[in-house]
């Protein structure tokens, strides 16, 4: 196996009493696209700036291509960084901005000119060389920032919420474009976002941050379908949580006694028989059962308290007997039970479609 492009070992950062990041382990292989996803203040930016060299970790080590870079200042790391607000130099033209890192690397003028042109073409802005950043739209500025970070072909590209300042349509467009650049250039990317959809669409792997640590890391689908903790299940997509106590545990299957009867699901790690547990179920996995339908692995009863029309689907809330609420999602136009507020319903889902997680 080749050396990973980036490796973090037990990285932590403390500001006085505040622990911003703690115990972060991570490896990034060549060509991989990893997103940091997490709520505000969870330590994503701090981790990224430590990789860039703008802040020093208070513990742990950071290896770039196998070499410890903690003692190196940012200008000796040769990493590409794209900032949320672009950070283009306002007094330089687009071409001068993109040529800047090449000048710092003493690339001959003629070669630099060609590479600037190629970089502009790459991000779809040929002919913009002589404009000033103030004469560009937000999306165009972000492309220039991207070109400036790519032009010197860094082994690693860091992006901190690069699309955060753009409107929704432009974001979607830029997501596709960044994904294309990643694929075509084979660059290794570390991407910070707090938009879960963005993370799901673009990433090879997602690291979910919470309270300064990585709560779970994995492929988008694995993370979505098999969250390891209640936090991940709730942060990535919607989930309903039903509390209970583990009755039996076997072969990654758990049986949980809850106020709504016995529920079955895929067992996460960290459970023990007799211990408190949470059953997490995704709304789109919940099915409305008609009078003749056979019960599923998990079946509960309640009264529909809300129906929300979402265009492609309807979201509904079933109020269970003890007051707990269960979310369901019904595709619009689907055959089956009609939804109406106040109706008594039975809903069910299969055991493999739900996760039993440790409580707390």
């Amino acid at each position, binding site marked *: 196996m080749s050396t990973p492009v980036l490796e973090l070992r037990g990285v932590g950062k403390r500001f006085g009493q505040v622990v911003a990041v703690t115990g972060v382990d991570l490896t990034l292989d060549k060509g991989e696209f990893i997103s940091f996803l997490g709520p505000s203040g969870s330590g994503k930016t701090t981790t990224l700036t430590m990789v*860039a*060299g*703008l802040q020093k970790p208070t513990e742990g080590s950071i290896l770039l291509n196998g070499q410890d870079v903690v003692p190196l*200042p*940012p*200008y000796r*790391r*040769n*990493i*590409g*960084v794209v*900032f949320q*607000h672009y*950070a283009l*130099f*306002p*007094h330089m033209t687009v071409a001068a901005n993109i040529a*800047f*890192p090449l000048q*710092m*690397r003493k690339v001959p003028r003629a070669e630099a000119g060609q590479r600037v042109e190629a970089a502009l073409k790459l991000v779809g802005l040929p002919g913009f060389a002589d404009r*000033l950043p*103030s*004469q560009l739209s937000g999306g165009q500025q972000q492309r220039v920032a991207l070109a*400036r*970070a790519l032009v*010197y072909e860094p082994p690693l590209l860091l992006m901190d919420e690069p699309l955060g300042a753009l409107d929704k349509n432009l974001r979607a467009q830029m997501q596709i474009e960044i994904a294309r650049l990643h694929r075509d250039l084979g660059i290794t990317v570390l991407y910070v976002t707090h938009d879960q959809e963005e993370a799901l669409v673009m990433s090879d792997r997602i690291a979910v941050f919470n309270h300064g640590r990585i709560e779970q890391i994995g492929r988008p689908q694995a993370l979505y379908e098999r969250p390891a903790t209640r936090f991940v299940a709730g942060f990535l997509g919607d989930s309903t949580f039903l509390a209970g106590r583990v009755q039996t545990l076997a072969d990654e299957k758990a049986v949980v006694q809850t106020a709504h009867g016995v529920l079955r699901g895929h067992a996460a790690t960290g459970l023990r028989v007799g211990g408190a547990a949470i059953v997490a179920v995704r709304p789109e996995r919940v099915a409305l059962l008609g009078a003749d339908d056979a019960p599923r692995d998990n079946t509960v009863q309640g009264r529909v308290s809300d129906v929300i029309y979402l265009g492609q689907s309807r979201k509904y809330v079933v109020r269970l007997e003890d007051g707990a609420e269960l979310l369901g999602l019904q595709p619009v136009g689907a055959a089956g039970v009609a939804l109406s507020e106040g109706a008594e319903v039975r809903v069910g889902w299969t055991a493999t479609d739900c996760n039993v997680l440790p409580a707390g």
Partner: protein
Amino acid sequence: MAVVFALPVGALLMRSASDPVWGLQNFRSLWEEPVYASLIRNTVQISLATTIGCILLAYPFAHVMATQPRLTRLLTLVVLIPFWSSILVRSFAWMVLLQNNGIINESLLWLGVIGQPLELIFNRTGVLIGMVHVLLPFVVFPLYGSIRAMDPALMPAAACLGAGPVRAFLRVQLPLTLPGLATGAVLVFVMALGFFITPALLGGRRDAVIARMIQLQVSQLGDWGMAATLSLVLLVATLLLLGASQLLVRSPARRVAE
């Protein structure tokens, strides 16, 4: 306001060509008598040196003020203190500090850094220390403003792109703060041209400046014509400088805006 100000100034300047008799004799002596040439040279030298001294001190000062929010208030206070004391008090305070048996020389002697007291006062050094002290805020505040106006991500971005601290400063921060720096420098230079109490109190015999001579000619020699001629020289120089700086300061800003 314009009338109240312009009339007496106009009347004074008139005297350069009418006192003691009508004619250009005042301008001729300005040109021919070497004392005036040396006055003008002194004034320009002192003003330039003061401006450079202010820039060199003000830049790091304003930089810390703008980038360390916790120190901003304290440093503002420090730089404003000279404004709250009279120019006389300030100059006498410097005398106490700078003279041969003043605090600075005594401490340095005691520490063994020097063997002989340094000549810190009643010469050019004293004049510059006093003037830089008074005029520092006029560079610090415009500069503080333009450093604050910079996107704080620019310098980290430059570092990530491979620029060491010196190159990042020269290529990014300096050009972007040049308007503030130029504003402050011109202000200091122009004000320094008109200073006379500080050079008189802290300088030596060879530090005579135009403004001091104007005052002497009016109050002691009664030569209103020559005083008016020198005033005219100062006024024209000041206006030319301010005009030029307007062009200079505005052009980069305009380039960015277009």
